[in-house]
């Protein structure tokens, strides 16, 4: 965390290499957060660029009230929300139907040991299936699941980013998982 503050301080003094270091450090996190919420790799890339551009122009107004990643995730999530609001006029189907092939692939991947998934094709297939399930969830659930499952943030960090109480984080995550479980109900034949 101190390292981020130091890099920011250097950048504020005009050291552009410090900014580049921050970009290198956080580009994966920012891109994957956006991709998981928006569901389109090309758009996620464009939005990630805009997020870092905003960091570049607003770095001067950053106060040490929160950590740098929290501030960065907040910018990222807000930008994703803007994008999703823009799309609200367009008709987006929240219905997800997995075909038999996808169901079998997901079952197969989850049944295998972790070492087996190093295969790029399998990983890509799993990524598509998970993304399809994520895209079918409401935006709030997508955001909270992304921050927890993809980024591995703590409840406290999520509460700061989403500006909600810790109790709400707990309940929202529980509900989001229930909805995701519902979408992947074919994985649980015994129920």
């Amino acid at each position, binding site marked *: 965390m101190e390292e981020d503050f130091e890099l920011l301080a250097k950048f504020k003094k005009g050291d552009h290499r410090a900014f*580049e270091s921050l*970009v*290198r450090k956080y*580009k*994966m996190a920012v*891109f*994957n957060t956006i*991709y998981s919420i928006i569901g389109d*790799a*090309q758009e*996620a*890339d464009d939005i*990630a*660029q805009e997020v*870092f*551009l905003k960091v*570049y*122009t607003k770095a001067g107004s950053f106060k040490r009230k929160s950590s740098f990643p929290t501030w960065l995730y907040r910018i990222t999530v807000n930008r994703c929300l803007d994008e999703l609001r823009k799309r609200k006029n367009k008709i987006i189907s929240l219905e997800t139907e997995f075909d038999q092939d996808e169901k079998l692939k*997901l079952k197969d*991947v*989850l049944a295998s040991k*972790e070492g087996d*998934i190093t295969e790029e094709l399998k*990983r890509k297939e*799993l*990524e598509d299936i*998970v993304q399809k399930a994520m895209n079918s969830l409401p935006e709030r659930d997508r955001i909270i*699941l992304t921050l*927890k*499952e*993809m980024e591995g943030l*703590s*409840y406290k960090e999520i509460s700061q980013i989403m500006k909600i109480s810790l109790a709400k984080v*707990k*309940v929202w*995550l*529980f509900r989001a*998982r229930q909805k*995701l*479980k519902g979408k*992947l109900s074919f*994985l*649980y034949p*015994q129920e």
Partner: protein
Amino acid sequence: MSCKKFRILLSAYLDREITKDKEKELLNHLNTCVDCARELEYLKQIKRMFILKGKKEPQEFFETRLLELIKNKRKQLIWQSYFPVIKRTIVVILIFFLIIAGWVNYKKLLYHRTTETISDLLVDEEIDENFQEELLVTYYSPLK
């Protein structure tokens, strides 16, 4: 505690965001409730799915493209920073021209009026003649 409340705790337990007391309570419940134990396995499977999914790389030359974007934005920002100054300067120049134009017009009007009065007196011969006649009438008529 009902199974529904334990299910919320399961989610927090999975994320290691649960107090020791609650954890103990939950583990005791899991030993006796098959449904909740099964639910925990499902949630673990979903978590595993995200781990296996891994992370995706952004498109190539992310930093290079970003630096180019920043370069363009900076040019735009520089122009934008000058814009209010340019706007104010244009307004001041316009006001200045309006004042000058108004003053010139006023002077023209004043000059025109003055010259008109003088010319009325000096140039209009007919009026001058009438004036002379009137003078004659005024001064000499009583003597007639």
